[in-house]
């Protein structure tokens, strides 16, 4: 399906019938049943529950299944954990591989050639474009998604959020923080 859609989009773009940017605007205007709120719930649970976190890092698809979400999560989802020494980012060179069952539709930039090409070569510069500056000694790992294996970043839990409910924790988790082009919001960014 994806190849056929992609072929159509290429032909229609080359012939001037559609503008990819306009298509992205239409796509982004629509909600899916599925969105980053699902991933945010998963991250919040992992922050709140060490046992769940362990299970998530061992087998994300299986762990998410135990949450009893309405949305079925596909196999081969891998959660990669940000730590004090390592930051993770996800990318896909074929553009359509994205953990859409936990994050919804991919943002337009995720599919763009510059993001796809540059993230592998110069992740630090790409992060700077997103307004994220990391310490020079922090390792950045880039995970290249495929149709079979998709990744979700488990962002670091912000300081000062001890004792927060899962619901409140989930409000800290942005889509970009689960792609790795952003960090979770700070405690002060979320209204009490």
């Amino acid at each position, binding site marked *: 399906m994806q190849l056929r859609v992609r072929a159509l989009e290429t032909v229609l773009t080359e012939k001037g019938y559609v503008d990819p940017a306009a298509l992205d605007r239409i796509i982004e205007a629509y909600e899916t049943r599925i969105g980053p709120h699902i991933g945010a719930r998963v991250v919040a649970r992992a922050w709140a529950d060490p046992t769940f976190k362990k299970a998530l890092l061992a087998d994300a698809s299986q762990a998410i299944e135990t949450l009893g979400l309405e949305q079925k999560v596909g196999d081969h989802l891998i959660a990669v954990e940000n730590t004090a020494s390592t930051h993770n980012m996800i990318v896909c060179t074929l553009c359509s591989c994205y953990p859409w069952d936990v994050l919804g539709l991919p943002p337009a930039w995720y599919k763009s*050639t510059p993001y796809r090409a540059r993230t592998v070569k110069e992740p630090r510069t790409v992060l700077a474009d997103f307004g994220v500056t990391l310490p020079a000694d922090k390792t950045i790992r880039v995970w290249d998604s495929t149709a079979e294996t998709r990744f979700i970043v488990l962002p670091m839990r912000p300081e000062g959020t001890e004792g927060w409910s899962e619901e409140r924790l989930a409000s800290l988790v942005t889509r970009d923080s689960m792609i790795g082009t952003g960090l979770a919001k700070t405690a002060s960014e979320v209204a009490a």
Partner: protein
Amino acid sequence: MTDNAEAGAVRAALDVVPGIPCEGEAPVFEEPWQAQAFAMALALHQRGVFTWTDWATLLGEEIRNARAEGDPDDGSTYYRHWLATLERVVALKGIASSDTLGRYVHAWDHAADRTPHGQAIELRPEDFP
């Protein structure tokens, strides 16, 4: 195109084309390619390539034919038929024949195969059969 114009364009489609899966008044998609196929139809309609009445007729034929061949009548395959209709309209209107579309499918498949892991995939002339 403004958000309002977009919303109006979508409503126009929902008014005429039966079966579009919706939650409330907004279309919902199970996978990204479905939203892309939906957006392409919307864009072609805005270019005046077809009317929604024409589209509904062609899509209806596609669905009837598929059901005659055992397709489940439960909406789960709606966007497969939508995509097939899109390919048919593009051929009918002389924009691209099914041969041309097939060549592009082959080219993308080929480009994906030859591109090393970690590099962005781009179409090159040699990808075409």
